[in-house]
């Protein structure tokens, strides 16, 4: 890991959540969530199933509207009401199911929905060059051809393409939803390297994972959700693995986490 793990707090976070609440009907899924995501850093977002990770990233992506609270992007308050708003800000989400069209090739997928055009003609040449440049910049060396159909790619290669697609758009914040969940050892290695390079090229990265080995390998900060509350959002150097697991499963660990009274209230 080359990036500094502790950043001075005076750097403006790329994304900051302040007191975000979100309910679905009677069920409150996010309670007063605060979170900071810094440029050039990988922030691991951890939490048990149902802790609210997916709701949180969907709120960032503009798929769910938040009920109250503030979203600050590079220090400016913003409202995100749809995926297009998020994309316009420079937020790219790489979903777990990847959302690639199998019947299109790598270049076509990377530019899907945002094709470059010459008049009404698709500008294939410039798209192919840009796709190749982006992949090279991320040191992706595992693709045989950028004109290969996505259906012929392995799981790790697909993940790579999905991430590269996010990077192509001058994105500032890339959210990765369990990018290594379905991968083997070697492919996980590729993807973790790529995640690291994303941060090293100046992107703010949110990395959702259940795998503590991956988290401690690649993350600079860790944010733990517990039943919809942010238990901790700290540099990873301040916690160790047992502590993070405690934060995930019990909501607090030592001095960190939700106040004991609140934990008790939540667990009722």
């Amino acid at each position, binding site marked *: 890991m080359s990036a500094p793990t502790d950043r001075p707090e005076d750097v403006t976070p790329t994304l900051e959540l302040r007191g975000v609440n979100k309910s679905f009907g009677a069920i409150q899924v996010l309670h007063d969530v605060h979170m900071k995501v810094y440029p050039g850093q990988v922030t691991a977002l951890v939490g048990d199933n149902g802790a609210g990770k997916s709701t949180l990233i969907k709120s960032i992506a503009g798929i769910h509207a938040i009920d109250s609270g503030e979203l600050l992007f590079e220090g400016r308050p913003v409202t995100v009401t749809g*995926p*297009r708003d998020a*994309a316009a800000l420079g937020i790219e989400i790489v*979903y777990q*199911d*990847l*959302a*690639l*069209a*199998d*019947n*299109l090739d790598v270049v*076509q*997928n990377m530019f*899907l*929905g*945002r*094709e470059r*055009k010459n008049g*009404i*003609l*698709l500008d294939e*040449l410039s798209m*192919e*060059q840009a796709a*190749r440049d982006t*992949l*090279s910049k991320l*040191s*992706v*060396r*595992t*693709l*045989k*051809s*950028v*004109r*290969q*159909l996505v*259906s*012929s*790619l*392995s799981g*790790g*290669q697909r993940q790579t393409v999905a991430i590269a697609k996010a990077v192509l758009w001058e994105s500032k914040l890339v959210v990765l939803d369990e990018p290594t969940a379905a991968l*083997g050892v*070697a*492919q996980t*290695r*590729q993807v973790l*390297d790529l995640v*690291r*390079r994303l941060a090293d090229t100046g992107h703010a990265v949110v990395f959702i994972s259940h795998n503590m080995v991956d988290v401690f390998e690649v993350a600079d900060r860790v944010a733990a959700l517990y039943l919809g509350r942010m238990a901790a959002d700290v540099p990873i150097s301040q916690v160790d693995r047992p502590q993070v697991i405690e934060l995930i499963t019990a909501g607090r660990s030592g001095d960190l986490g939700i106040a004991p009274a609140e934990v008790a209230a939540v667990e009722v």
Partner: protein
Amino acid sequence: MSSTISAPTSAQEPGGAPSGFEADRTADSLGATVRAYVDRVRGGDLGALPAILGIVVLGLLFFALRPETFLTPRNMANLADQAAPIIILAMGLVFVLLLGEIDLSAGVVSGVCAAVMAKLLADAGVPWYVSVVAAIVTGVVIGLFTGSLVGMIGIPSFVVTLALFLGWQGFTLRLIGEGGTVPVRDPVISAISDRNLPVVLGWVLALLVIAVYAALQLNRFRVQRAKGLAHSPLAVVLVRIGVIAAVVVVVTAVLSVDRAPAVGVVLAGIPYAIPLVVVLLLFLTFVLGRTSFGRHVYAVGGNAEAARRAGINVTRIKVSVFVIGSTLAAISGIVAAARLGSVAPGSGGGNTLLYAVGAAVIGGTSLFGGRGRVRDAVLGGLVVAIIANGLGLLGTEAYLNFIITGGVLLLAASVDALARRRAAATGH
């Protein structure tokens, strides 16, 4: 699965490691391209292979059975006229099938539009172009209606178009009247099927098509190579140009021979239906392959959710493919009416739709969506037309005709389903 998965890469990898995209550079050899093609076919991506085989095998079969009539210039011109309405209808279905949808009403929609045109010509006495525009507008409106029911309300296209299949037949019946037929005698409309391009003009156009195709292909090759992008080897580009040139020259030559049954009359030249099909083929191939609309059609057919997340308006794409389908059905109806010289209540019913779906699927368009090209309609339409034409020459009874055509469609659909399974198994 590719063998590259097993090679882990890491940030610490020493210099001189493979930099990726090897295939984009080394594909510059003919052998590699041929191997890649064989791999693709083995992997289940048969492309145009079944249709071309079908045309060759059926052509030889009927030539062997009816050597004195099948391969004559007269029958070839007749075959082109027979194939044109099937091909045009199938072109529209390719768009619908690309989304994994189906339009069972396409055949009868062609009947409705033809009836609108015929009624306007016969009863209102409007000029031919007004009636043609009216027929096409009818097709667009019908397509909007079908597309809205499927795309906006979300009824499965199978059910919507099955209902409309019945509904529009009633509409045609009401328009024309029980047992009646409306003659189509307008000289311009009839010319589509019974007039020919002057022989000289035919040759000029044929050579023009070859020259433009060659220029476009070679220019693309030059630019791609100059910029170091993925491209086919020069040999493959040249073979492609050669094949297209050969087909165009042979067709033009055959149709330029005098095929009049009587001495003293000259009947030669390319029937107007052929340039019509070629223009539609070029235009729709351009739309599907070179515009973002076409790209989005493929994306929605391959993974609608991915397309939606990429910001593509999936509903709009769905509605538009049904509009395209019905518009081409209208054109197909006009061509069929020109060929038959009349429109009857049953026009566009019967096996019209079966032929067109069969054409698209035999040509290589998948019923599962995401895979298909406009040229599939042409190749598959020729196969279907050769079967109908050849069986007609053999004097087979109607019942056999139905059974054989149905069987061929079933065969094509099985090839499609098996190819898809094989593709899933081999990762292609």
